[in-house]
């Protein structure tokens, strides 16, 4: 197994609070890795550091062995790394098609002046990328709402649109920030299928969920963090029985603690 993404001792503080501290883990090619932890454990902060939204104060992030620590989001995107957001960030004034088409941005080779003059090569590329967008819409069952304003759709569909937008970039790795948040049971089950479907096309997935059930079902490998530190790592069975994880999620039994 080859390492696609490696986090090596990364840390960041916000106003004296150590949000993430000395965190290391590896995402291998083709894996589904789950990053879990109680609310406020620092999961989204980790994602923000990987995708260049925050610059880690310490540690190194490597992509296929190359140091990408502190690179800007647009540069990270060129590596083939895409993400969704915990609070969905679709382009509000645009249709579903336009939102998903936005994911193709880096695939567009046209120069700005070719666009302004509407030269034949540019028109051809536009047609190709529109076809690619429709293809992804079909795969994620969004073809029927292609022309609908994206943010007027139900929450679960918006999550799928955002996922489709990441796929339009033909990513190597996608990072899903709480993809099941706000979904009902049926949508949540469908999401699991979608995640497997994406993985089967060769895309590596790193996902954050505080809902343990989703993570347990889909992840090949799970990393558990609490208060910004890694407290456990392993497969679903190992994590489920890990005392540190149980304590972090359920809290320490106070009677036992006083008795000890």
């Amino acid at each position, binding site marked *: 197994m080859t390492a696609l993404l490696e986090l090596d001792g990364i840390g960041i503080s916000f106003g004296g609070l150590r949000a993430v501290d000395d965190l290391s883990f590896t995402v291998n090619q083709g894996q589904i890795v789950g990053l879990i932890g109680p609310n406020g454990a620092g999961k989204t902060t980790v994602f923000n550091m990987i*995708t260049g*939204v925050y610059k880690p104060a310490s540690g190194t992030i490597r992509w296929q062995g190359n140091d990408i620590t502190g690179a*800007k*989001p*647009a540069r*990270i*995107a*060129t590596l083939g790394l*895409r*993400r969704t*957001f915990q609070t969905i*960030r*679709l*382009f*509000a*004034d*645009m*249709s579903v*098609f*336009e939102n998903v*088409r*936005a*994911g193709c*941005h*880096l695939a*567009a080779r*046209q120069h*700005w002046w*070719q*666009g*302004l*003059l*509407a030269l034949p090569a*540019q028109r051809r590329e*536009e047609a190709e990328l*529109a076809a690619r*967008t*429709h293809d992804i819409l079909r795969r994620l069952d969004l073809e029927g709402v*292609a*022309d609908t*304003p994206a943010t007027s759709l139900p929450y679960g569909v918006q999550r799928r649109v955002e996922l489709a*937008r990441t796929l339009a*970039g033909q990513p190597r790795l996608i990072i899903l920030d709480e993809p099941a948040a706000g979904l009902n049971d049926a949508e949540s089950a469908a999401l699991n299928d979608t995640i497997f479907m994406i993985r089967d096309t060769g895309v590596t997935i790193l996902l954050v969920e505080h809902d343990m059930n989703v993570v347990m079902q889909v992840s090949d490998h799970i990393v558990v963090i609490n208060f910004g530190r890694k407290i456990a790592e392993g497969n679903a069975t190992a994590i489920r029985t890990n005392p540190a994880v149980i304590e972090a999620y359920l809290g320490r039994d106070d009677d036992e603690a006083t008795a000890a």
Partner: protein
Amino acid sequence: MRGFKLDGLKLGALLWAAGLALPFALDSSWVSIAAFFAIYAITALSEDVILGRAGMFDMGHAVYFGIGAYVTAILNTTLNVPILLTLPLAMLLAAAAGALLSAPLIRLRGDYLLVATIGFNAIFVLAMQNNPGGITGGSDGITGIGVPSLFGLQLESQSAMFWLDWVLLGLVLLVMRNLDACEFGRALRYLKQDELAASTLGVDARKVKTLAFALGAALAGLAGTLFAVQLSTVSPSSFVFTESVTLFAIVIVGGQGSIPGVLLGTALMFVVPQIFRGLAEYRYFVFGIAMIAVMVLRPQGLLPRRRSAA
């Protein structure tokens, strides 16, 4: 005419073509108003690239319009450069100014950018008034700008100048329409809507925004050349801060990112005041009230951008 549908492009093309006949229907003072409409429409569309499409609060857009006008005026009156040769230079220098001035400010939030661009406008007007190197003519400006000639033909009649302005407006309209359907134009909209989401899709915000400023400035520079020719004189008073405010208001009132909206805005702000000249200063009172009413009742503008389908 089976299957003929009058879409925006065909309607626009028809109106534009009809506009070519204006000099046969109107007296010369109205033809001159129509010429000014074309010139200010190009300027307002150029402001729309920066403000309406990219969402950057450029409150100093008259600077680029002014640079275009001064480049043509100076080159034509001192070095006798033919007008139509000064046009690409005016666009180029305005674009360079737009890119250079905006580069350090591009990361500023909307309100800060707005204040900084007001500063540019103040400096520009002051610089032109101070007659640096004796080339701008100070407060009086530069007079005696020549007429453009095309294939040996002197475009000196008001009608000929109108046609030149009208043809260039048509070209600018085509460019604006293409902008909507190309990756660069869409990247501007992504950035305007959500810069963080856009950057995680690989949109290089600094590059795209600088390019938007350069393009907006270049088109304003083009309008500046036409303006200098139309008036045959330029002076700092045509490029003061209030001109920038008017351009800003046209885009907001007309409809950001909407070509018909910006054209309607231009007509309301520049043509209607000519019709009501008799009302003198009262027209500005009416205008102020109208602007407030539009913003309260129709904050998206008079003719807002339509959601484009797939």
